């Protein structure tokens, strides 16, 4: 099963520390020494606030990803329980962005510094990659001051499903008659 980061709206205070944590994890701490206009700032998650909810929204790493299925050039792959955009292959066609039902993909200037042949910026699909390859795991989880984010793995899902079934069994047993 693919893993994903789940936010808890009871704990999230909307402070957006996770968004910067994401950028630093992907661009490196060197950005703090660079000229401010010479690096890209592309958080792969976004805090959404409504009247009743505050929560970061990011890629769910679907098991049958619409984005991967529609990508015409095979630039989205599943690697180590993670749905990943391969920026080298991405042609910036936006099909994945349209296909994603969560709005978890946006289009940004590629941060690898590579340009198009005419030296203009390359625009590529941007989405959560669970900080793949990062020893400490997803940075958003690590930096959140209220521990509002959690990595959901196969085991967590199994426990959650089991708990829900137990609760369902108890509530069903209380329905009398019929």
């Amino acid at each position, binding site marked *: 099963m693919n893993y994903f980061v789940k936010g808890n709206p009871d704990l999230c205070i909307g*402070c*957006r*520390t996770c968004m*910067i*944590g994401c950028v*630093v994890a992907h661009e490196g*701490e060197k950005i*703090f*020494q660079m*000229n*401010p206009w010479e690096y890209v700032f592309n958080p792969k998650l976004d805090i959404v606030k409504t009247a009743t909810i505050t929560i970061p929204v990011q890629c769910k790493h679907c098991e049958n990803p619409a984005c991967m299925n529609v990508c015409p050039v095979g630039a989205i792959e599943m690697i180590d329980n993670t749905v990943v955009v391969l920026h080298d292959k991405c042609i910036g066609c936006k099909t994945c962005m349209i296909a994603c039902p969560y709005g978890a993909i946006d289009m940004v200037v590629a941060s690898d510094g590579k340009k198009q042949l005419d030296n203009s910026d390359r625009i590529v699909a941007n989405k959560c990659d669970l900080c793949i390859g990062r020893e400490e795991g997803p940075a958003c989880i690590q*930096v959140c*001051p*209220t521990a509002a984010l959690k990595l959901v793995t196969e085991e967590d899902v199994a426990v959650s499903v089991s708990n829900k079934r137990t609760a369902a069994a108890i509530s069903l047993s209380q329905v009398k008659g019929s």
Partner: protein
Amino acid sequence: MGKQILTTCPYCGAGCQLYLNVNDGKIVSATPAAGRTNEETLCLKGRYGWDFLNDPQILTKRLTKPLIRKNGILEEVEWDEAISYTAGRLSEIKAKYGPDSIMGTGSARGPGNEANYVMQKFMRAAVGTNNVDHCARV
């Protein structure tokens, strides 16, 4: 690896403790420490709010030399001139209008308690007025 300096965050009154991680005389990152109030957590300002120190000049510029306005224009001067000019003008105003014609502020921000103590002592003992206040009210 370089060294870790334990300090208190300069933003907001929560008093979070953090480490400034220094390499080759430069801060490279800030990480949370086990402070009484913050227990190894930091918000975005505490964690990512230190790089103004290397003066990226996004909004304003670090002041690096004393300046005196001469004929309407701020000109760089040496410290001796800046200090004697400032002391001279303050003494002049004090002599002409009295100590209560001078107002001073403390600072609720970066300087720290000792600087505030010295400032209020300066206003009270050297200038001779209780006209000292800070932006607690705004």
